[in-house]
């Protein structure tokens, strides 16, 4: 786990406006939302800025085959042997708010192994590392905005704090996505459908709007299954500028 997260005691601290917004919830969260480390959270509200045509942030970096090889999207083939765990295929489309595909852009994925352990110096969870699993992958979206990864289903891992000494993170994939504009940059997490840990997860609950939280949950899609090889999960990502969360709060 996440000792560095656990040591923050962040849930003891009052939630800020974004974290404590009105819940239009169909599912009541069973855990207080993660509000992060107070000392790192800006006190001043972000300064609103309407970007004029030509502004730097209305464009963004471009990536191509010089950056990503097709094999980078298969996390099960990065070592001499096969990783342990249930093989999954995760795919979907990256779209902008108008439903247009985001083409040729970079999607990055990182995750714990099947036992719930990251190959990372900060992870001290007493679960085994897998010598055949690093847990990082990259893909480019195609002309329809589609991405696709092959990996293993990550395990849950403990995420204790003073308020929740026995909390666990539900299995999740971390995603980093670029849009056609730098304003669309997105870092987020994908969850698995039907997970009983979700309502108890402070991180999932840090998204104040219940419908928005649901958009972080993939659907099982047999069309994405690779026959007799992997289970398919579909997860579409919609980039709508950087302020999706704050916008929803006002609704």
């Amino acid at each position, binding site marked *: 786990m*996440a000792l560095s997260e656990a040591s923050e005691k962040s849930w003891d601290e009052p939630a800020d406006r974004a974290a404590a917004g009105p819940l239009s919830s169909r599912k009541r969260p069973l855990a207080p939302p993660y509000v992060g480390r107070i000392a790192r959270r800006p006190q001043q509200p972000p*300064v609103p800025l*309407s970007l004029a045509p030509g502004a730097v942030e209305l464009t963004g970096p471009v990536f*191509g085959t010089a950056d990503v090889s097709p094999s980078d999207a298969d996390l099960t083939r990065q070592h001499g042997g096969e990783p342990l765990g249930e093989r999954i295929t995760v795919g979907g489309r990256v779209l902008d708010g108008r439903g247009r595909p985001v083409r040729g852009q970079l999607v990055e994925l990182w995750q714990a192994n099947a036992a719930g352990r990251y190959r990372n110096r900060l992870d001290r969870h007493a679960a085994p590392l897998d010598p055949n699993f690093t847990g990082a992958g990259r893909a480019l979206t195609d002309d329809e905005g589609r991405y696709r990864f092959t990996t293993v289903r990550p395990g849950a891992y403990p995420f204790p704090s003073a308020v929740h000494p026995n909390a666990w993170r539900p299995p999740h994939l971390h995603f980093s996505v670029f849009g056609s504009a730098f304003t669309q940059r997105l870092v987020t997490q994908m969850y698995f459908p039907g997970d009983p840990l979700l309502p108890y997860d402070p991180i999932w609950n840090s998204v104040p709007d219940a419908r928005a939280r649901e958009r972080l949950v993939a659907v099982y899609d047999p069309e994405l299954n690779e026959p007799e090889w992997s289970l398919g999960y579909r997860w579409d990502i919609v980039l*709508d500028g950087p302020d999706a969360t704050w916008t929803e709060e006002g609704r």
Partner: protein
Amino acid sequence: MTLPATPAQTIGPFHGTALPFPGGADLAPAGHPQTVTVHGRVLDGDGAPVPDALLEFWQAAPDGSLTGAPGSLRRDGGVFTGFARVPTGGDGRYALRTLVPGGAPYLALCLMVPGLVRHLFTRVYFRFPEGDPLLAALPPDRRATLLAAPEPGPHRSYRFDVRLRGTAETVFLRFGPARP
């Protein structure tokens, strides 16, 4: 059609083995005579350094073009791609080697910090141009947080600290309704 956006989540503490890449900070082509260094620290509200934060820079080329180029993740040392990704070390320090942009004289900066629920945007100005709408809207003391300070010495180097909270808190941005 309007699709509701996918919400952001914390980057968490474990991205370090996935996102940083070799040469991420070397935006200037190798040996370029106009190379400048932008360096500084990411600090929290107590003045403590923030390790394992990730700074992503996007900028115009010296000729002002914003087209960028592929190749950031596997740099060949010859192409200016416009994009850099720089993690902070244990002391909260980062250093970017780049070229001063043409046109609008700033770097767009996206900052991802463990312990924050979402990423932050700001700008790094090499100078304050006349008529810049953002700068015009800020009081002078807040405006100053966006300026990379030139440092004395033979090397062209600029200091830019990010203060996440408290005294001299960096101005962070929220982009308005304008869409690409």
